[in-house]
């Protein structure tokens, strides 16, 4: 036995370490971080040179547009992450939470745990933490690029935006857990979760509840850095997101516990 394998054996396994290994021994952690980081680095650049690019593509036609503001740099990152990043996070979470997809693994786990919470909580928490970490990484990259190319951003607004964005992604992971309790396959879980997350903002057309919906957090980072809103404006949607996440997990656990393999 080598020193490395001996050291590995001293780290005892549990369901939390299983999820950590799922992230680090597969391309999942690298993939999710790389996507967020890439978008964080590229979007402020694209925003900074957007007018020049349009000018080149329009073959001499005169197009005048206002110069980008620092808030535009971060806003472009948020806009892109809302689609691509969300799909990546939901896929990552679905792969972990769809533990009934493979009969052998399902039997192994279900005949050994005393509560379905044991299976769901580490999967949710590690996926949500990974999503939040990747979101933070991407935001820091976008912040740095914006600072260098366009101008400075208010630190408090950026960090408050990270809080809102990370909370929304955690809500998306909880919705994925709920979706995994509706369908067994990973593809089905991803499709169901994305459908719920896409349909949910439609409710925001009813203005009375718009600021209470989790989807209000999607554009919060941009609103917070350009000063149009203060963090207190998003407290209702933050609270609803946390409560809705808890409810989604509770329903998911109950449904998964009742499911037969």
């Amino acid at each position, binding site marked *: 036995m080598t020193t490395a394998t001996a050291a*590995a*054996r001293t780290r005892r396994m549990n369901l939390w370490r*299983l999820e950590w290994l*799922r992230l680090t021994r597969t391309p999942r952690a690298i993939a999710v971080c790389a996507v967020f980081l890439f978008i964080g680095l590229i979007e402020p650049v694209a925003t900074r040179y957007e007018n020049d690019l349009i000018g080149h593509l329009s073959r001499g036609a005169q197009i005048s547009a206002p110069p980008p503001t620092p808030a535009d740099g971060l806003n472009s990152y948020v806009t892109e992450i809302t689609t691509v990043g969300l799909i990546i996070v939901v896929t990552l979470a679905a792969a972990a939470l769809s533990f009934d997809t493979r*009969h*052998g*693994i399902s039997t*192994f786990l279900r*005949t050994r745990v005393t509560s379905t919470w044991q299976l769901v909580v580490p999967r949710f928490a590690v996926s949500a933490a990974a999503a939040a970490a990747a979101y933070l990484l991407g935001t820091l990259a976008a912040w740095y690029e914006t600072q260098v190319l366009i101008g400075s951003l208010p630190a408090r607004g950026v960090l408050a935006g990270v809080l809102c964005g990370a909370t929304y992604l955690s809500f998306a992971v909880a919705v994925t857990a709920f979706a995994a309790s509706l369908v067994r396959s990973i593809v089905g879980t991803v499709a169901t979760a994305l459908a719920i997350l896409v349909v949910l903002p439609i409710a925001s057309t009813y203005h009375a509840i718009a600021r209470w919906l989790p989807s209000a957090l999607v554009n919060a980072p941009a609103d917070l850095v350009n000063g149009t809103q203060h963090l207190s404006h998003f407290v209702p949607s933050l609270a609803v997101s946390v409560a809705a996440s808890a409810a989604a997990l509770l329903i998911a656990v109950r449904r998964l*516990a009742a499911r037969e393999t």
Partner: protein
Amino acid sequence: MTAKDHLASSQAPAAVTEGSGAAGSSPALPPGSGPVVTTSGLTRDYGGVGLFDVDLVVPRGSVYGLVGMNGAGKTTLLSLLSGLRRPDRGAIRMSIGRHKVAVCPDVSDFDDWLTAHEAVDLSRSLLAPGAGGGTVEAALAAAGLADSADRRVGGFSRGMVQRLGLACALVDDPELLILDEPTSALDPTGRAEMLAQVAAMRGRRTVIFSSHILADVQRIADQVGILRDGRLLYQGGTQDLINMYLTPTWLVRIAGETAPIAAAAACQPWAARVEQAEPGAIRIEATSMEAGERGIPAVIAACDARLVSLEPADADLESAFLALTGASSQGEK
């Protein structure tokens, strides 16, 4: 509700109860000291197919083979016993604690990126969190995977994965081991090793395993249950079943000419039928077991023939199974 919760539940439509069950290392379990699992009227109906009114009795310390054709209800019965599915009616009673029950599915499966040691250690952490690290190595060694402990499961053959499943089940030293088709993925050598391992458990723990390979069941199971169309046609001693359907027919192998023996046997009043089975062997059917047992050796001796072997024909589980399931279907017609 998890499988374990389900086993402990008494609120389900079917009463599922368990006894106090001693925790810790299981001592030798003398066969016949009371059943470890009993079911009464166990039913799970999938619209005409499934499992119906099964009264199972599994003696403590026995190796209980569950046999039946595809779709007979073997996996459904094992899933109900494991708590992975819930019965529509009936009751399951276990005389041991639910934490002393281990389950191996027909196709064991693990995340490819785990090492064998990590997979067994994960099982240990869930089944016996207080157990020492040595239990993992012991379980891997018992499954013949000590040398592959630090290899990732993704590089394992199907047989190795199957053995890893067994190691994960054995890590908590269960009193009841439920194995669904444990030899289905194994090559002949792996199959022989698995069967020897299960056979060696007799008396130390109770094993319920399903198989459609009747030779495997006959080889290691002292108790057998035969399922057909979701109903338990027979349960009891394996040898008792073979004896029950034993026909008074023998296969006689002779060194030299078989024709004189065949002619002499055919003249006997107790001989019902005599035929050439294969070169150097004849099949003799007597009117009764006793008549054949007395008459055949006498004929061989009278002919001064050189006897190679004399054995009962069709004295195996397969013949008994076919006779039982055939008789049952004819009875229904």
